[in-house]
């Protein structure tokens, strides 16, 4: 009853092609943005903002990146972690080499470096498909990680091999480095994410996104219809890696503050892949929902007993958390292989026909 499109007429194709053609959706998104920008920083505890919200939003960015590659273009990648690493190392180098330029510029620019690297490792995708390609991207994962460790220049020859976020500010407010308040970092992350989400959704809804989906669904037919596979796939690698790279840079500058190469390991790749699958391949909302689930849930489960005042050995909590997350992943795959995005759609569908089923 509350979710109806009846009575809302579209008067032009532009209306029909809008992201949120239904008024209720538009109101909903405005409310969510308001909560994100106002309520969270005002009422969220520092722990909530810094340990749950910030990494969640950053990983959402990475999930959007991977979703472009896997969900839209149908190319599986297990190298997300390393592509994020490229962004982080690039941003670190840029920000230390040119300290006077605003760090946000470098965060955005670092994505281009991982885009370039992504394109190089995307080249085999012309010949190799499916899971075979996934393994090819593993080559990227391990090779890049090796570079992070071996190429001293990347870390400015730091003896510990780690990279640190320098202190930088925006409009007089410190936003990166030790001492930046979580609110400032959060707002930066949120703004970048919102802006890039908007761009990503523009791309995937337009000509380029359609080409990606053509290649994903039936590459031969796409080719016979005049789509050139290699440039299309490479573009997907580039755009996807761009998002991952920016996410990596944000992870360093707005979340950890200091990272070593091992943080960009295969676990991270898997984590992002989980988000994309659980959230729903080929869906922007899915990336958000998936990231929320995979990034925030373990933290919540891990600290839930503590918050509830239950005493459990921490190792047990951790083991049980691992099990629960694994179990939930299987559970959700079974309930809905198309992820939260589909559940969301079905939910809307049900709302639409409510109170009459079917």
């Amino acid at each position, binding site marked *: 009853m509350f979710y109806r499109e009846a009575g809302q007429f579209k008067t032009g194709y532009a209306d029909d092609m809008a992201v949120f053609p239904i008024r209720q959706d538009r109101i909903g998104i405005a409310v969510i943005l308001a909560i994100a920008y106002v309520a969270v920083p005002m009422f969220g505890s520092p722990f909530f903002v810094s340990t749950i919200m910030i990494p969640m939003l950053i990983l959402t960015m990475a999930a959007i990146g991977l979703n472009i590659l896997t969900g839209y273009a149908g190319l599986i990648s297990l190298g997300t972690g390393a592509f994020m690493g490229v962004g982080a190392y690039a941003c670190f180098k840029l920000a230390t080499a040119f300290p006077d330029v605003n760090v946000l510029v470098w965060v955005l620019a670092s994505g281009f470096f991982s885009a370039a690297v992504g394109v190089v490792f995307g080249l085999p995708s012309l010949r190799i498909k499916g899971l075979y390609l996934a393994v090819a991207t593993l080559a990227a994962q391990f090779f890049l990680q090796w570079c992070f460790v071996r190429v001293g220049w990347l870390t400015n020859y730091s003896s510990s091999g780690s990279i640190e976020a320098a202190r930088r500010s925006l409009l007089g407010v410190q936003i990166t480095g030790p001492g930046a308040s979580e609110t400032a970092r959060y707002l930066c992350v949120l703004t970048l994410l919102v802006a890039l989400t908007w761009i990503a959704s523009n791309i995937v809804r337009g*000509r380029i996104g359609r080409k990606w989906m053509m290649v994903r669904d039936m590459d031969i037919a796409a080719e*016979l219809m*005049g789509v050139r596979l290699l440039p299309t796939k490479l573009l997907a690698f580039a755009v996807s890696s761009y998002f991952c790279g920016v996410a990596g840079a944000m992870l360093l500058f707005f979340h950890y503050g200091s990272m070593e190469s091992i943080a960009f390991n295969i676990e991270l790749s898997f984590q992002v892949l989980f988000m994309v699958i659980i959230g729903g391949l080929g869906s922007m909302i899915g990336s958000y929902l998936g990231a929320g689930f995979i990034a925030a849930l373990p933290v919540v489960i891990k600290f839930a007993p503590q918050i509830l005042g239950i005493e459990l050995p921490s190792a047990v909590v951790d083991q049980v958390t691992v099990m629960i997350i694994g179990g939930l992943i299987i559970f959700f795959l079974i309930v809905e292989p198309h992820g939260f995005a589909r559940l969301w759609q079905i939910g809307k569908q049900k709302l639409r026909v409510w109170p009459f089923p079917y």
Partner: protein
Amino acid sequence: MAFVDTGRKTGPKPIAAGEVLLEVEGISLAFGGVKALNSISFDIRKGEVRAIIGPNGAGKTSMLNVINGFYHPQHGRITYRGELRRRQRPDTAAAQGISRTFQNVALFKGLTTLDNIMAGRALKMNVGFFWQCLRFGPALTEEIEHRRKVEEIIDFLEIEHIRKVPVGKLPYGLKKRVELGRALAQEPELLLLDEPMAGMNLEEKEDMSRFILDVREQFGTTIALIEHDMGVVMDISDRVVVLDYGRKIADGTPDEVQKNQDVIDAYLGVQH
């Protein structure tokens, strides 16, 4: 019909109706030991409906694959619009105005009907990456312009009601219709149809026949058609070529072919 630009350039040399548009000569294609095509020659004239028939495994689909560059024959020459065609990548055939439908429906499963047909226009859209990111200005104008054309095709094929349905879930007959729509969206000069009416009931076959004839009539599109329903083939095609396990056994008007004893033996079986 408004969705085809009449002023569109048709390549180096415009071909008048009735002239030879495509000619294949001595095409041979083998897969390992299987000779799918054995020195086949025939031509397709501008504006006609050219049927290719033959028993299962005769090499009909392979012939279409050769024409649009997906298979490369070991021998033979193909002349299109008067130009000898070199070995080419599949995506160039599309650029030259050859589009097709597939025997085993090859729609983009995850896309809606609308997007599938929009996909047909992929080659015609070219606003740059920057505007695509913003989906604003030229990108939006272009999108709307093509959307309008696509809506015309949707109207033409009477599939308005499934516009926003992901095609994976459509019943077979409608999938075939969407596929035709997608091919039409490419504004082809030569349209290759591989069993467009398989799995349809009579009513739907009638509709499909009507669409095919309308397309030809209104845009002068040349059509090559593979079909096993002899009723349809005999009624709507102008000339028929008959293949039998890689060989050409007959070529002529429907009536001639129908009476040819080789064809009856190899393909038609008992008349009905």
